[in-house]
């Protein structure tokens, strides 16, 4: 059974977003970290950077491979998880909690509705063979 919290929204690239007022917290899903394997490096944008929906905002590397991170929503980065460069393994251990990556102040709150629901994301993961 895939770990897909119901209160989050998702992208088809396996990022999650959590609405916090006019901001959204962003990370990668349990399925994504499982597929990547041991995460050893996370490259995040700086606070103040602009990110665009479904454009890359950073990079996550596992022992085996490098993957782009896609922003679920458009806006300005107002917070980054400064622990990740030092402890990238928390992305594996706690992808929805301590493994969060950035907080984005939404430029267009309506974009939230374009993201996948937990139910839809579960179907996507199931179709990917899990």
């Amino acid at each position: 059974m895939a770990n897909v919290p119901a209160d989050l929204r998702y992208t088809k690239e396996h990022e999650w977003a959590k609405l916090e007022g006019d901001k959204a917290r962003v990370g990668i899903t349990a399925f994504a970290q499982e597929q990547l394997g041991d995460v050893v490096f996370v490259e995040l944008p700086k606070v103040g950077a602009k990110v665009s929906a479904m454009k890359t905002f950073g990079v996550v590397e596992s022992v085996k491979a490098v993957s782009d991170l896609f922003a679920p929503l458009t806006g300005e980065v107002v917070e980054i998880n400064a622990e990740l460069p030092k402890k990238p393994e928390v992305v594996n251990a706690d992808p929805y909690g301590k493994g969060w990556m950035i907080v984005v102040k939404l430029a267009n709150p309506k974009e939230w509705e374009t993201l996948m629901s937990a139910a839809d994301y579960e179907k996507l993961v199931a179709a990917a063979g899990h």
Partner: protein
Amino acid sequence: MTQTPAPLKRTPLRDVHVKAGAKMVPFGGWDMPVQYTGIIEEHRCVRSAVGLFDISHMGEFEVRGPGALGAVQRVTSNDASTLATGQVQYSLLCYPEGGIVDDLTLYRLADQHYMLTVNASNIDKDWEWVTEHGKGADWKNVSAETGLLAVQGPKAEGLVQRLADTDVTRVPYYHFVKGGVAGVPCVISRTGYTGEDGFELYAPAERLESLWNALMEGGKSDGIQPIGLGARDTLRLEMKFALYGNDIDETTSPLEAGLGWVVKPAKGDFIGRAAIEKVRAAGVTRKLVGFEMAERAVARHGYRMSKDGAEVGVVTSGSFSPSLERCIGMGYLRADLAPAGTELDVDIRGQAHRARVAKTPFVPSKAKKS
């Protein structure tokens, strides 16, 4: 028109891996386990206890007859005439132009009987090569019927000895004996690709699953784990062992790759000898070096190396080293910059990241040398 990719080949243990929860990936045309629990955990298990690898995807060719030694000497770069029965030798197949067809281990099974173990992705190419250029001997491709397991780590010797019907503790590094392990007839070879002590066990494909199960069961008290190709890669990288297709290929000279020690021109002619000797006389312009990244940034195959803004080399392998907990890699660097300590930059996604040429192996080898 669309082309259907060839179906992935399977080792005799493919279903065992799936049942054990392995993540399977295509590798060189094979459906192989890349990891079971996690690359870092598996890596540490091999360095601290014992790990079991299914490497049955590797190819094995046997060659026998009065012309066997002559055929082997023509196609390989090392001097096979120095091999005693029961001994193993690291060697290369080379092109006339001096590049590398493949790297291999050569076994002298009996007086006029040798075995070559070659890389999985090169089996077809190598088979064509040795049968075309190694005429005058009886070649047999036994890849399909030969299974191969690696048992590696400080507790490997104890485990194999408990299951063996022969004294394996007396087998020196790069030697082998024939004997039973858990009742399965094996070539028990003190070799490996990890820098740990241990064995590679060649066994009939149809008996491989019972051998695997006996080792997993017998190694429980040692903390044995199955190890995937992911950890196999990080383990070999810490030793700066070359991986064909990454660090060596048809464009690289053995001398650039630091493999001059397996090129023996004094033995007589062999394919590639003249071209390699030309390189030796002229001196190499680039060398395969190991490097450490200053920060956590992974250099990958194909990334550029630069010094003071000028391009000076290219990365061939790179990963996170679980033993050192830092990022390491290998690459071809301009020869004058090759000494350990040289500072350079690796271009990672458009940004220069500092690196330094390291002494290698990155981690001391614990393979039994005597």
